[in-house]
């Protein structure tokens, strides 16, 4: 029935690339030693883990001792924010944005409950944060600024370089949730003056369930979990060795191809945006230029996102509506609300996220299937007829 399967949900997760998988493979059943073990078998695994740490560090301009492996982007965000908050003798002030991922936003809400104050900065209609607003929001006891490198839903890139400079100027810690950017765009922790940076392997063709937190030398946190002395006690527990090996390799590969991949994916992205816009009453959400190479987020007016998704799904096209994480919710996403979309437009939003493996043919296939889908749903819609 389906002539083609087109995965355009790379913002949600990505496949492990074959060469990455091959690299991880021996660590399941052959080199399975515990890296904390004293014996030769454990020491060999320890070496591989440290090799992966070096690769990860190199990819973002960090030192290996500044990389702590975690279970993913969510954990990295939680450790950075709650860890710095816990370190304080008394509650303080946090600056973040209103369009962060829930793994930042909800931690901040929780910090508020614990007595901290949080400023959630607004964004413009493209989803951009104004660095000046960050500067103005700084208070005497502001201890951390957490601004994402790029938004996962609408793909808008943030001026993290400027924000990092402000953080340094005022002596405030700077954390960036770079889960959507690492492996997609060049990024250097020194250039952006990050004290903390979160990344997650499954967003750059590495395995799920493994991430890393960059924590600048000298930065201090009070870890959330207690246990063994792994990962400098920042993240205790037997290391997810195959995951770590996979993360290191995936990042090495991704970074080595970054400029080539970027221009290829951007070309596909723009072709898709153009084709969808031609349908009429389709609006692009997010910034027209300052956006992730693979992100296409559009609102189909008069119809609802889930119906659109289901219809594409039936044609073998896999996309998402808002972020996968919030799919359980009925409310339109906080990001689409923050950029000022009305309820109906927000509800009609669909994200196509392109990545490694997508081709021109994939885009053409989507553009071939889109018109009848949109037409059919609009024909059923009372708001379309009443327009």
């Amino acid at each position, binding site marked *: 029935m389906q002539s083609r399967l087109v995965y355009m949900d790379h913002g949600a997760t990505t496949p492990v690339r074959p060469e990455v998988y091959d690299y991880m493979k021996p660590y399941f059943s052959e080199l399975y030693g515990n890296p904390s073990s004293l014996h030769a078998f454990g020491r060999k695994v320890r070496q591989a883990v440290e090799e992966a740490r070096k690769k990860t560090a190199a990819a973002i301009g960090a030192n290996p001792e500044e990389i702590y492996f975690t279970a993913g982007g969510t954990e990295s965000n939680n450790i950075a924010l709650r860890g710095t908050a816990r370190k304080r003798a008394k509650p303080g002030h946090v600056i973040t944005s209103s369009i962060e991922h829930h793994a930042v936003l909800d931690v901040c809400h929780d910090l508020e409950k614990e007595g901290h104050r949080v400023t959630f900065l607004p964004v413009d209609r493209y989803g951009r944060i104004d660095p000046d607003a960050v500067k103005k929001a700084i208070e005497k006891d502001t201890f951390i600024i957490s601004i994402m490198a790029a938004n996962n839903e609408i793909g808008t890139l943030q001026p993290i370089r400027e924000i990092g400079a402000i953080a340094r100027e005022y002596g405030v810690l700077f954390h960036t949730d770079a889960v959507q950017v690492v492996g997609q765009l060049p990024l250097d922790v020194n250039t952006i003056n990050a004290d903390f940076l979160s990344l997650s392997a499954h967003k750059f063709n590495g395995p799920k369930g493994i991430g890393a937190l960059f924590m600048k030398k000298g930065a201090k946190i009070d870890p959330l979990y207690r246990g063994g002395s792994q990962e400098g006690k920042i993240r205790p527990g037997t290391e997810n060795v195959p995951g770590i090996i996979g993360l290191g390799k995936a990042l090495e590969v991704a970074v080595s191809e970054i400029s080539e991949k970027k221009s290829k994916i951007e070309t596909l992205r723009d072709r898709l945006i153009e084709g969808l816009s031609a349908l009429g009453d389709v609006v692009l959400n997010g910034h027209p230029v300052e956006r992730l190479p693979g992100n296409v987020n559009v609102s189909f007016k*008069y*119809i*609802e*996102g*889930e*119906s659109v998704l*289901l219809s594409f799904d*039936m044609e073998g096209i896999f996309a998402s509506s808002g972020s996968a994480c919030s799919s*359980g919710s*009925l*409310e*339109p996403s906080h990001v689409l609300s923050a950029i000022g979309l009305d*309820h*109906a437009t*927000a*509800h009609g939003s669909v994200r196509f996220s392109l990545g490694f493996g997508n081709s021109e043919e994939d885009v053409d296939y989507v553009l071939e299937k889109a018109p009848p889908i949109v037409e059919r749903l609009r*024909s*059923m*819609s*009372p*708001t*379309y*007829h009443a327009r």
Partner: protein
Amino acid sequence: MYSEKVMEHFNNPRNVGELNDADAIGETGSFKCGDTMKLYIKVKDDRIEDIKFQTYGCGAAIASSSMLTEMVKGKTIEEALKINNQDVANELGGLPPMKLHCSNLAADALQDALANYRLKQQS
């Protein structure tokens, strides 16, 4: 997530459209999820002779709308008055818990249409 029956109704919804000579129109909207529905009925001898719908909404909302029109068509007004959202969901082979409220939409629109029909009769 959705049952086969839901998907079948979503893909091939019955009775989509408007009725130019409708005897009554029902309308409802969910503030929560933004879904809206418009239901047209044609009544003859106290029986719902024809029915059509327009729905803006998710898969569950569209399938519920379609299912409801099938359930209602040919029924007497009295019989139609008894149909609630649980009946619609059941006929569809169940809905995911968080989507249950979408079947409200269809049942509510029906009740609205029936109420409007009565009002019109009385006036």
